[in-house]
């Protein structure tokens, strides 16, 4: 009896604490970022200089844009591997527009990038949602097709920095109140999409689809339409990311953004988005991207050979996945115990 009493008395405390930790998955990443920052700062105090911090914010901005879109897709238990290729194509086409119309307004350039990405995303979405073909295969195919189209369009002629107007390059290197504009744009995307994902029904449907597709259908969720929208938005954000890439680097070759898709998925997974859908937040994904980039820079600042970056990133990814698994197993156990107790009463 006494044993049972003790567990009954103890369980609410552990539960609430543990559920709190669960709810603040983002907090864990923030702590990790601060920890990396502090450790590096002790080794090299210039790590906290304004320029360094600005670099820390603007560096991952493009990956954050892509990660926001990728989160919507992964939450529905799909994946979008074409984002890197979409980014490359959009960056080049927007650059090419500037070559022909140097006085194009900046906003128009961003819109064009967004539209190019939207078109690619719509193609992905139509095939995945309405032809019911596995997303991994479709977006892998699109990765190759879009990259091939990019290669044909580029045809060996790169965009040069001199061809991009200064007003657009400022977008990539400028700051407002000391904060890089690139980061502000990415943060705005995170804020808007994050708010929508918390608040509105169509966005909540995405979680329902990812948790249990059959149940979602039975609950009256318009699964194809929602999945289609997720892919369209992911494509659009990747296209916008392409325009931002052009603003940041001002030079585009046909290989721009190749291999990004796996970095983006890595950031999203580190950010606590379950790869099989149903849980995770846009903010978490963005923080995941921020963490990976901060570690990259921390290694440089602490004069560790840059050859270590990838190995550390890989280790971190494995640790993050294992940690998520541990947490979900613990949570399941606690919920089961709680359920049993409620059954007793």
């Amino acid at each position: 009896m006494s044993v049972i009493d003790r567990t009954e008395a103890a369980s609410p405390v552990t539960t609430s604490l543990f559920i709190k930790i669960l709810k603040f998955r983002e907090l864990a990443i923030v702590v990790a970022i601060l920890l990396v920052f502090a450790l590096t700062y002790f080794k090299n105090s210039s790590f906290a200089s304004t320029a360094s911090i600005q670099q820390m914010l603007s560096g991952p901005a493009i990956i954050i844009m892509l990660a926001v879109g990728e989160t919507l897709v992964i939450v529905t238990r799909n994946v979008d591997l074409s984002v890197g290729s979409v980014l490359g194509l959009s960056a080049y086409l927007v650059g090419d527009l500037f070559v022909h119309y140097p006085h194009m307004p900046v906003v128009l350039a961003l819109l064009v990038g967004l539209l190019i990405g939207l078109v690619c995303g719509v193609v992905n979405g139509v095939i995945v949602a309405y032809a019911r073909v596995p997303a991994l295969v479709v977006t892998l195919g699109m990765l190759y097709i879009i990259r091939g189209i990019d290669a044909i369009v580029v045809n060996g002629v790169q965009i040069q920095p001199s061809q991009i107007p200064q007003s657009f390059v400022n977008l990539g290197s400028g700051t407002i109140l000391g904060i890089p504009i690139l980061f502000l744009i990415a943060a705005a995307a995170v804020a808007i999409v994050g708010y929508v994902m918390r608040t509105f029904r169509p966005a909540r449907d995405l979680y329902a689809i990812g948790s249990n597709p059959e149940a979602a259908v039975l609950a009256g969720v318009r699964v194809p339409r929602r999945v289609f929208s997720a892919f369209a938005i992911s494509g659009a954000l990747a296209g916008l990311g392409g325009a931002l890439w052009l603003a940041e680097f001002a030079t585009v070759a046909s290989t721009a953004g190749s291999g990004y898709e796996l970095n983006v998925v890595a950031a999203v997974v580190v950010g606590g988005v379950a790869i099989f859908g149903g849980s995770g937040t846009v903010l978490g994904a963005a923080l995941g991207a921020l963490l990976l980039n901060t570690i990259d820079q921390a290694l440089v600042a602490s004069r560790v050979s840059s050859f270590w970056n990838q190995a550390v990133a890989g280790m971190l990814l494995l640790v993050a996945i294992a940690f998520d698994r541990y947490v979900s197993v613990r949570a399941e156990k606690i919920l089961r115990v709680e359920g049993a107790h409620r059954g007793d009463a």
Partner: protein
Amino acid sequence: MAMPEVTVLEEMLDARPNPLVQFIQLFSPKRWETQLVVLFIVSLLYGWWVSPYFLNLETFFFAGLNFGEIAIMALPMTLIIITGEIDLSVASMLGLSASTLGYLFMHGWNIWLAMGICLVVGVAGGALNGVLVTRLGLPSIAVTIGTLTLYRGIALIVLGSNTAVGFPTWTQKLSLPIGSTHIAYDFAIFVVLALIFGVVLHMTPVGRSIYAIGLQPETAFFSGIRVKRIKFSLYVISGFLCAFAGILYTFQQASSASDTGVGLELNVVAIALFGGVSIFGGRGTIFGVFVSVAIFASLQSSLTAINVSGQAQSIVTGCLLLLSVLIPNLSETVKRLRVKWFHARLRSVRRSGEVS
């Protein structure tokens, strides 16, 4: 009482597949493998049409040389995908093996010993994937994206920005045809491995278990199949063969760098999927993957012959991949849409009826 039993038995005997019928069914035009063979012939004809020099033994040799490593890595990938998992770390393992070989050789190790170490590294890398996927129960796509980064990272640490060259002269023979034939060593090794994999997958209990795992993991588990052990072994085999492919690749290129084979993982997956292996597991044949390799190799040769750049060729890769999943789905999709339209019309007719 006895009568029904006899009929049941007779029915069962009738239902027992006729070997001849089974054999003929292997060539049914409905099978993806048959369609692939037709596609392969079409791709050969296309090559012959664009270039009169296409259909000769030289093309065959170079295609075998260029595609050997990818083809070798596609075999364990096929088995892993059939069990419902995936291994995205293959190309990084190839790079890690190549870098290790280069590093050890530069530091004066005996070449055979160095090769042995590479294979051990491959087994260890595969075992790490296997442990994380089977013992910790982590999703394989996330795990192998992690080890993709990790193994490439270790390759970078091992070899840095150096390039290892000057391997013994006998290793250069690997980039030449075998004897006086036009068969590349890579291709020969691939064919032998494909035969072994084909026999194991299609003719042994282990092979049947692999399908069972992919179709229904729980059912397979409760039927006494050692699900985790088989998956683990497949990852180890994959690591081993990728390391082996890394050694072959290094000797053929006569150099090794840490970025050897970057991005090949998606090519390997594409070849397996185009060969008819279902991404959901449980379906696929070694023969299909074999023909898939042949089609990719033949198309690459013919497109290179008419000066289409490697990057532009990826359009063909992508389209083939999309078609491979769209065509089998097409009739089903059309049927579903027609049912949907029918219901929509029914509703509108009913509604107009109600109004009048």
